[in-house]
């Protein structure tokens, strides 16, 4: 992890100066946006396959359990192995991911028992695991450094402050021993408590305690004033590294196994017959989803993360039919949500619209007294922004959007009405019942249509030259006749495909 970070910084230092880099990363906005984008990209890539497999809510199950994995792994690390707890530790990430995959397997087992349906199995399993995690969090809150707020929304706004320092010049680490001139020494009574006496009493024994001994990294040494030369440091937020690794893993996974993923998603049976392993692909996907959920936990908590998996692919799915395009569009939508979401949390919508103004308006019109400064959760705002993009796609998509669908329906309905009437005339015009069936003034009754509607359709057909009126009866023109034969042929052809089920 550290090495990777170092390599990354080396790369960046070729382009930027150290000061520029530090200043850039110290801005909460920059760090939060980068982390948000990285989570959005990995989530959207994996989520696209989840969506197409009808497994979107599996990400929900995984993200809930991942919390339990994190808490248990954290407690194990600190209480049992005596390590320092750190939510970006690789051990913790691996442990928690395994827990995530474990849930999927467990719900599968619960479902296979045949006693509980799949939706109920999921609906049972994840509240339970989440509940256990919350109980542990509130019992051991001090040990796990987590509170319920962090679980819900994460701390993406503070990610810039949780850094690893990397030193490039004047990298002297300092070790302070009790002999060191800077050591602060104090005498402490070693047997007072045991004997129940005060340090001033006789028989009290003393030991010397060094208050600040230990090994000082260059960064700490400098801030403690132990160094003459300021070390050249780069402070790199840990969350960026973690989410970057997750992002790279997801991209690599999707690029390398693109063909396999595609085939197992659309036709698991065929994939199996061709020697691919659908089960293996499935578990690979689950493992990556778990990894991303764990990696994103610090930043966005364990519930909002599912938005990054589900919503951008759903929006992209409304915009395109092609998998490759979907894999391109959904990360863009997610990343755009992260970028604009940060502004939304500070009260700015796309930089043109001020939430404060809206609140002022509400105050005015409803006679309320709400504070005009809108300052809210960054991660939640990012999700809201992604959701807004989904709404836009839903309304405006050129192919599947509400508007274009409405226009197309209207057009199809017209054509369909034309065809219904033409077919009716065709069926009856050479029979003895034509006097009953084809009278212009009663034609609408046969269809149970409003007279107005029938008049419109007939007018349209006459303009198109498909029907004509003879003695109050409608009949097909030659063109109309040809038209009927044409669409009947098409229609019957599409219906008569041999169906071998």
């Amino acid at each position, binding site marked *: 992890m550290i090495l990777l970070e170092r390599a990354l910084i080396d790369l960046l230092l070729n382009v930027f100066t150290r000061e520029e880099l530090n200043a850039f990363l110290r801005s909460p906005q920059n760090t939060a946006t980068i982390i948000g984008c990285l989570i959005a990209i990995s989530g959207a890539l994996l989520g696209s396959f989840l969506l197409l497999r009808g497994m979107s809510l599996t990400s929900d199950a995984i993200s809930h359990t991942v919390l339990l994995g994190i808490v248990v792994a954290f407690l194990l690390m600190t209480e049992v192995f005596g390590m320092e707890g750190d939510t970006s530790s690789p051990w913790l990430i691996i442990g928690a991911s395994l827990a995530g995959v474990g849930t999927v397997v467990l719900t599968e087992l619960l479902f296979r028992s045949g006693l509980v349906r799949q939706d109920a199995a999921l609906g049972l399993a994840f509240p339970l695991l989440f509940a256990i995690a919350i109980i542990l969090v509130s019992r051991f809150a001090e040990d796990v450094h987590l509170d319920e707020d962090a679980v819900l929304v994460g701390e993406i706004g503070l990610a810039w402050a949780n850094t690893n320092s990397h030193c490039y010049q004047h990298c002297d680490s300092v070790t302070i021993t009790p002999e060191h001139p800077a050591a602060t020494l104090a005498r402490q009574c070693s047997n007072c408590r045991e004997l129940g006496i005060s340090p001033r009493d006789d028989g009290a024994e003393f030991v010397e305690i060094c208050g600040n001994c230990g090994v000082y990294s260059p960064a700490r040494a400098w801030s403690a004033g132990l160094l003459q030369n300021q070390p050249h440091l780069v402070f790199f937020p840990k969350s960026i590294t973690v989410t970057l690794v997750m992002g790279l893993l997801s991209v690599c996974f999707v690029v390398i196994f693109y063909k396999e993923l595609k085939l197992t998603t659309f036709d698991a049976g065929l994939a199996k017959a061709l020697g691919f392993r659908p089960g293996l692909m499935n578990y690979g996907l689950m493992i990556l989803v778990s990894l991303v959920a764990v990696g994103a936990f610090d930043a966005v908590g364990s519930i909002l993360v599912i938005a990054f998996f589900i919503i951008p692919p759903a929006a992209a799915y409304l915009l395109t039919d092609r998998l490759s395009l979907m894999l391109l569009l959904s990360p863009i939508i997610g990343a755009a949500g992260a970028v604009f979401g940060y502004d939304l949390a500070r009260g700015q919508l796309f930089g043109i619209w001020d939430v404060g103004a809206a609140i002022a308006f509400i105050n005015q019109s409803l006679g309320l007294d709400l504070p005009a400064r809108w300052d809210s959760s960054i991660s939640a705002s990012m999700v809201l922004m992604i959701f807004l993009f989904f709404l836009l796609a839903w309304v405006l998509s050129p192919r599947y959007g509400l508007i274009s669908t409405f226009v197309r329906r209207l057009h*199809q*309905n017209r054509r*369909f009405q034309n065809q219904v009437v033409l*077919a009716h005339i065709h069926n009856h015009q050479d029979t003895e019942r034509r006097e009953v069936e084809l009278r212009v003034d009663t034609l609408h009754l*046969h269809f149970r249509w409003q007279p107005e509607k029938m008049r419109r359709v007939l007018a349209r057909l006459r303009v198109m030259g498909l029907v004509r009126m003879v003695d109050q009866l409608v009949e097909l023109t030659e063109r109309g006749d040809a038209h009927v034969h044409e669409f009947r042929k098409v*229609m*019957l052809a599409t*219906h*008569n495909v041999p169906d071998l089920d």
Partner: protein
Amino acid sequence: MNDKVSSALSVGDLTVAYRSKPAIWDIDLDVPEGVLMAIVGPNGAGKSTLIKAVLNLIPRAAGAVSFYGKPYERARSLVGYVPQRGSVDWDFPTSVLDVVTMGLYGKLGWLRRPGRQQREQALQALDDVGLTDLVDRQISQLSGGQQQRTFLARALVQDAQIYFMDEPFAAVDAITERAIVNILHQLKERGKTVIVVHHDLQTVEDYFDWVTLLNVEIIATGPTADVFTPDNLGRTYGGRMTYLSDGQLMPVGD
């Protein structure tokens, strides 16, 4: 639409579309009272769609339907319905007797509960279909044929004049098949009209006295002897027919 009151079902210019694609197309159909009618046609021909549209279960694009000269809203108590067996969840926690009693809910109307009398009626219907021993079974423990007979009993308690059955013979055992046929004949003797979506061309002539050949449009309708001809079948199935050695017909790939 039709002024002949003797017809049990009269359909005029009925068209149904899924997303503006026609599923059935300008259907005109008159079914006389007291016949056993099969609706026959290839997969995707709109057989079930026709029944569902007639019963107002799916919206119609155009057309009118009347039962004994009355529109559906006023003729509801005259109509009994046996849906496809696969359309419900057979793991639902309820008993055979309970399912059959559901056939009477429509007559009871809002707020009234089924009582002793409804129970007796349901038991009688179960006796008619040969399920007396199983009245208390949970429905998931029934075989496919028994499930079908349960549905049949549920329609019988409705005591309707005209029955619609959606593929009652699909994947049932021989006992059930015979039981259903017996019921069909009893219904006919009591002057009821029965309309059945049917798949098996071999048995059409044995079981039904009236037949409608459907492939999106009506190909032919009338007494089985007149209508169920190789020529009409060929038109219905678009030429995909083979003749078996004993002169019977089979649709290819069915």
